[in-house]
């Protein structure tokens, strides 16, 4: 049974005669991994935003586990995303001035009055798992590879069923990129989470390293599968 049920999605921007994105249908099973590739400007980020509920479509339906994201309010989608989606982005979006641990905890801390102790130990465990040992270090002083690993730990903290990564290795050197790619797929598998990665990086797209992940190709707004 698919967890993702996406149908007849069409996104149009004013001034363009062709839709920026037109996907007749996509289904993902629980725990499935998918790599989304395609030239820049093809609509990858828009597509990911739809999947994570950051954007809503006027036409079509995006449903996870039976929850129709289009039917949720803005705050409702924020709540849903906080509970179900872990996001990793190209630019990390860590908050300088806060430590690695505080960065991992920040989204959850802003959601509640008191942070459960269990979350704090889980954050420390995740940081250990991604290889960040000095959890009190200000993230501004970390290397880029380390920053993205902190971001991966943050994405996993709430034990999300869905992990969405947008070009997670694009701004990293090869070695760091490989480490992050391995962490992402490995941790998603450990957690049994559905993983969707938008990337050009052969680390994800090459059949040898892709493993069992499906390869989705987005070109000029339409989706094809290899």
């Amino acid at each position: 049974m698919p967890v993702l049920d996406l149908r007849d999605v069409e996104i149009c921007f004013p001034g363009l005669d062709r839709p920026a994105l037109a996907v007749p249908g996509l289904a993902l099973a629980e725990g499935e991994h998918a790599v989304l590739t395609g030239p820049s400007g093809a609509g990858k980020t828009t597509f990911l935003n739809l999947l994570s509920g950051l954007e809503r479509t006027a036409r079509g339906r995006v449903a996870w586990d039976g929850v129709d994201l289009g039917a949720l309010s803005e705050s409702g989608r924020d709540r849903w995303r906080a509970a179900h989606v872990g996001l990793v982005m190209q630019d990390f979006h860590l908050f300088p001035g806060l430590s690695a641990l505080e960065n991992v905890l920040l989204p959850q801390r802003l959601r509640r009055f008191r942070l459960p102790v269990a979350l704090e130990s889980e954050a420390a465990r995740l940081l250990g798992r991604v290889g960040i040992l000095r959890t009190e270090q200000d993230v501004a002083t970390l290397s880029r590879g380390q920053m993205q690993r902190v971001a991966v730990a943050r994405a996993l903290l709430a034990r999300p069923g869905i992990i969405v990564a947008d070009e997670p290795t694009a701004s990293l050197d090869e070695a760091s990129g490989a480490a992050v790619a391995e962490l992402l797929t490995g941790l998603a598998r450990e957690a049994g989470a559905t993983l969707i990665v938008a990337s050009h990086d052969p680390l994800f797209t090459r059949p040898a390293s892709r493993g069992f992940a499906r390869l989705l190709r987005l070109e000029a707004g339409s989706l094809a599968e290899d």
Partner: protein
Amino acid sequence: MLRFIAADLRRHLAGVLAILAIVALATALGVAVTLQERTLRLGSARAADAFDLVIGAPGAETQLVLSSVFLQAAPLPLMRGSVLAGLLADPRVAWAAPIGFGDEVEGLPIVGTSPALIAGLGGVTEGSVFARLDEAVIGAAVPFRIGDRFRPMHGHASEGGEVHAGVSCEVVGRLKPTGTPWDRAVLVPIEAVWRLHAHAATEHAQKDGPQAAHDPAGHDEARPDEVAHGAGDPAFHVPLDPAALADPGAPGLPAILVKPRSVADAYRLRQSYRGETTLAVFPAEVLTRLYGVLGDARLVLGAVAYGAQALVGAAILIAILVHVLQRRRQIGALRAFGAPRLAVLAIVWGEVFLVLGLGLLAGIGLGYVAAQVLSSHVAGATGVPMPVGFVREDVLPLAGLLLAGALIALVPAVLAYRQSPAAALR
């Protein structure tokens, strides 16, 4: 959340401090204007408290009060000496004392008067009241000691005054603190002033011709037959003669302080001494009129201060909006990672209000300090103690200012709240 705000403020410390300083200065401007105006009003009202009725020659009421109560010497027209004699004999008068000025010593005004005024101001705390013409009583704040001797300076040093040749006075008593400019005055017997000036006038007349006999305080009517031969010299080493004051033929006087026996007497006295030859005023009444002018000035200054505050508010709002726009990606990311919209609102609002609020509080403190400094300068220059202080009525406008800060902070907060996380991340 607080850690997050603190981290952001630390990262932009220079800008935050600049905004804090601007808010504080704008607030201080308004606070200082309000406090200073109140201080001037209270200080001068307290200084005038001791003086019920002042009688002088017809002329400017305000100048009469400024000269007699606040000892701001200026040329005053003179009344005939018989006025004092009449007042001393009047049954409605508890006491009446002449005031003659024009001399000074080391920048302190010398006031010629009678023992009645010293008793009326509360008497002496040290030593005794002057009993001879070459004795003096000093105000509570005068930096002389009992037993000191000084030479009176004719006119004001700043106007090229000169020392009265050979005259020297001995300090014999110190006045009780009055909280008025009289605390900085040196009191001598009025007869001594008369004699000094008659002496100086003839000296000048002999030297430079009659014009030079002009005296800034207007003592030129002093009778030449009172001329003694200077002092330090035995002519001044004589006891006071109470009868000299009651003499209808006494020299002219610029002002007389009168303590009426009752309120009704005060009004009757004022009535009967408002005429062709004299002018009677209640200092409190004249001050009230002055406060009207002061109040208008405060309104103008207040409007300027509020205008400045409004401009500062607008400029700061723009600075904050720019800052929030620069942070759109950060705010969008917070939302994308699952921070609720209200948390975003609270963060932005809290951060802006923290800076504005701290600026306002610092400004209130700064305004208070500025008013203190200004008032102590005024007090130093005039001798009028200037009590700076907040009153309960100040709470409301200050709370209003804080509320305005809270509302201003809401603008960028709502902007951040409404921002779509996807648009911010693009």
